[in-house]
């Protein structure tokens, strides 16, 4: 068959250029900005700020666990409050907001070749409602009774009973209101991300030419738009149970010898709703990390990503499968054995697309021209960490293995490895990678190396021993465990060791924060494309990109995002918007 279209043929523009809002004052340019790049920085800064609060909370927990009985100010109630707020902040207000609101806002328009998100005004509202949600959440620290101590899963009936901190005070109400606000705000942003990817790409940018970063964020956003409704409904119903005295989740119950005014509700219903959101949430955090790490590895190994199409389908497949595995969080809640069988099977099937991704990352590295830059170090660290966390996931996905391990420190170690440490490593790598585009200057390399090694090795020193004490049977969410049979002398020593490592790793982040601020003025000038990368965000006329991203003319895309070290080409990278044909690209036809 003869191909009649020339290689450079690009379809004509289908839509008129979008109308941009041009700010008239300092306020509309930097505060109430409709520019996705400014909104991205606002999202990132807010998420980091509240994330630091959660980091301090984890220190307080480790103080208690490592040195029980030493710190009188950490009462059992306070300990539960620390656990709850640490978990909720890290999962929702830090990771979700940073990946989708932060990286999504900054990278989607730039990478697909759009001037901005499709509805900048709605996008701006998204951030301000998110900020309100964060403030409502933070206010619960100062409310009478303090924040809720129900655990981040907020299981009823205990979440709204007087024995739980904040259960009959303001804590749980503020938490639920904050989550509802977060979901409303996120929906506004999420609709923007999805429509921008689907309907606002530049000429020549087909879906199969998108960088995997965009694929990851795009799929995660669709999942979030379908999973958050379950959490929304669960929050509304629990709010009614608490504030109006309904009994959606509350069975007939006796508390302190007194019959409560509830009856007939189903606590298990809450668990189903929560985990129908909660399990996709794991992948809402993981898929953007998968996408970003693919781009980091390809760029810094100067090689095209191996099996691009399989990578895309693996992302989509993981996204779809993650909606049918939620009850593996509920094995100990009790269920029909066939359900356990079903959910264990679907859970283990997810290992297939996930393994495809890991193999493809490794095969991308295979015989690559690997530059051990700081972003690359973080990307490599992610792969090993994710494999580690994924393998313990195979343990917990099986009903018979999960039941004895459930609610032990093994579970804590598992999910911190797989959805705590691994995505955070990607976030660090991504910040080192894109900081030059955001500010025009490189982050300091020496500080970056120090930050990487302390964080990476430290994270293993924290969470590896945790697997071990979990296998010994040490339960999680216990305030104090000194004088019990499961807590041997060695387990106590390990706990103290873990705590000391947690302080070290936490303090090392000060170097990173210092680097972020110091490099704005003193970093090395980066130029427009310091990593010699192919994707569109590195081809902008100005760095940092100006309002409207691409100057007068939108870029036209002629190739996929992974033309690195193309045999026969002069340079070892060919930008996506470079016309002409060079050498033999590996772009799938």
């Amino acid at each position: 068959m003869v191909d009649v279209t020339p290689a450079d043929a690009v379809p004509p523009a289908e839509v008129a250029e979008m109308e941009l809002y041009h700010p008239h004052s300092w306020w509309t340019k930097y505060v109430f900005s409709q520019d996705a790049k400014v909104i991205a920085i606002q999202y990132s800064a807010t998420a980091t700020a509240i994330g630091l609060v959660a980091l301090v909370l984890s220190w307080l927990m480790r103080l208690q666990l490592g040195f029980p009985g030493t710190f009188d100010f950490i009462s059992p109630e306070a300990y539960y409050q620390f656990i709850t707020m640490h978990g909720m902040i890290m999962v929702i207000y830090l990771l979700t907001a940073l990946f989708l609101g932060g990286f999504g806002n900054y990278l989607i328009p730039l990478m697909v070749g759009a001037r901005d998100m499709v509805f900048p005004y709605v996008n701006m509202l998204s951030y301000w409602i998110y900020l309100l949600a964060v403030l409502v959440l933070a206010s619960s620290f100062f409310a009478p009774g303090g924040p809720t101590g129900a655990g981040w899963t907020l299981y009823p009936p205990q979440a709204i009973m007087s024995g739980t901190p904040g259960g009959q005070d303001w804590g749980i109400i503020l938490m639920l209101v904050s989550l509802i606000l977060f979901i409303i705000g996120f929906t506004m942003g999420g609709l923007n991300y999805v429509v921008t990817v689907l309907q606002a790409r530049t000429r020549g940018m087909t879906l199969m030419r998108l960088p995997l970063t965009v694929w990851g964020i795009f799929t995660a956003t669709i999942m979030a738009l379908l999973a958050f409704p379950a959490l929304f409904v669960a929050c509304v119903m629990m709010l009614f149970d608490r504030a109006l005295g309904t009994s959606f989740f509350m069975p007939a119950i006796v508390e302190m010898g007194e019959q409560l005014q509830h009856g007939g509700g189903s606590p298990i219903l809450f668990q189903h709703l929560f985990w129908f959101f909660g399990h996709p949430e794991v992948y809402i955090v993981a898929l953007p990390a998968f996408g970003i790490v693919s781009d980091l590895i390809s760029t810094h190994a100067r090689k095209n990503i191996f099996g691009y199409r399989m990578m895309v389908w693996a992302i989509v497949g993981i996204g779809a499968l993650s909606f049918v595995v939620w009850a593996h969080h509920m094995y100990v809640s009790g269920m029909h054995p066939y359900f356990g069988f079903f959910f264990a099977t679907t859970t283990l099937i997810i290992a297939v697309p996930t393994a495809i991704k890991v193999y493809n990352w490794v095969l991308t590295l295979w015989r690559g021209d690997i530059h051990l830059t700081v972003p690359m170090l973080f990307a490599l660290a992610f792969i090993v960490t994710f494999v580690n966390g994924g393998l313990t996931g195979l343990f917990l996905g099986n009903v018979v293995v999960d039941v004895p391990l459930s609610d032990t420190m093994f579970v804590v170690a598992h999910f911190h490895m797989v959805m705590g440490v691994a995505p955070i490593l990607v976030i660090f790598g991504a910040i080192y990678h894109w900081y030059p585009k955001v500010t025009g200057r490189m982050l300091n390399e020496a500080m970056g190396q120090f930050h990487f090694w302390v964080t990476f090795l430290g994270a293993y020193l924290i969470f590896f021993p945790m697997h071990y004490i979990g296998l010994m049977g040490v339960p999680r969410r216990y305030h104090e465990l000194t004088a019990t049979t499961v807590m041997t002398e060695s387990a106590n020593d390990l706990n103290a060791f873990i705590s000391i490592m947690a302080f070290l790793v936490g303090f090392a982040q000060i170097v990173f924060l210092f680097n972020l601020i110091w490099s704005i003025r003193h970093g090395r000038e980066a130029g427009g494309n310091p990593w010699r990368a192919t994707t569109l965000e590195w081809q902008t006329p100005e760095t940092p990109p100006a309002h409207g991203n691409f100057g007068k003319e939108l870029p036209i895309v002629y190739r996929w995002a992974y033309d690195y070290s193309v045999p026969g080409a002069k340079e070892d990278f060919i930008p996506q918007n470079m016309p002409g044909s060079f050498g033999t690209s590996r772009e799938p036809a």
Partner: protein
Amino acid sequence: MADATLTHTGQAQPRPTGLQGVAADWSSDQRAFKNVSWGKAMMWIFLLSDTFVFGCFLLSYMTARMSTRVPWPNPSEVFSLHIGGSDIPLILIAIMTFVLISSSGTMAMAVNFGYRHDRRKTAILMLLTAALGATFVGMQAFEWTKLINEGVRPWGNPWGAAQFGSSFFMITGFHGTHVTFGVIFLIIVARKVWRGDYETGRPGFFTSRRGRYEHVEIMGLYWHFVDLVWVFIFAFFYLW
């Protein structure tokens, strides 16, 4: 809610039809849904998300109803009105449903006249839709008042399972809120149509973007969705 339209590129773009057309569109550049504007795509995706919200509400209600061990009040008796000496079951709900479905008809007509640039008829039909929507909410308020007077509360009622009142107020309240928001936005869009904003390209107050008559259709998508949801609430809550 301004967005980009198809521009005349001067070149014919023959596209395959059927499944091949779908594949061609999704593997093409720029847009996955050809000839679908940003605003319309966004509304459809929002409605998909909202479907999950209502789906979770209804599933939770059904779970509560099936798992409670206290008898569920009989909807035919609870939702009956004493008219002319006899109890007519579900009469108010029937009228409410009729009103809401009719409003979908006037909405569809408004969309049609909008694309014909018939400002007067479009605005009148939209206001009529809003009036029917407001009537629906008004009748809902009447129904709530009647039930509250009879002793139904979110935490209990005289006839059986407490979850009856909880689910009733939560689900109809959430749907009624959707209708109320719809009425407010219908009035806003009707005002823009009446004033001729979509003819003169007057920029939006908040977004500074120009609107188009397509906004009437996007408004209509939301309105039809709210109607469709009501049909499911009607079937699962009142008829079951």
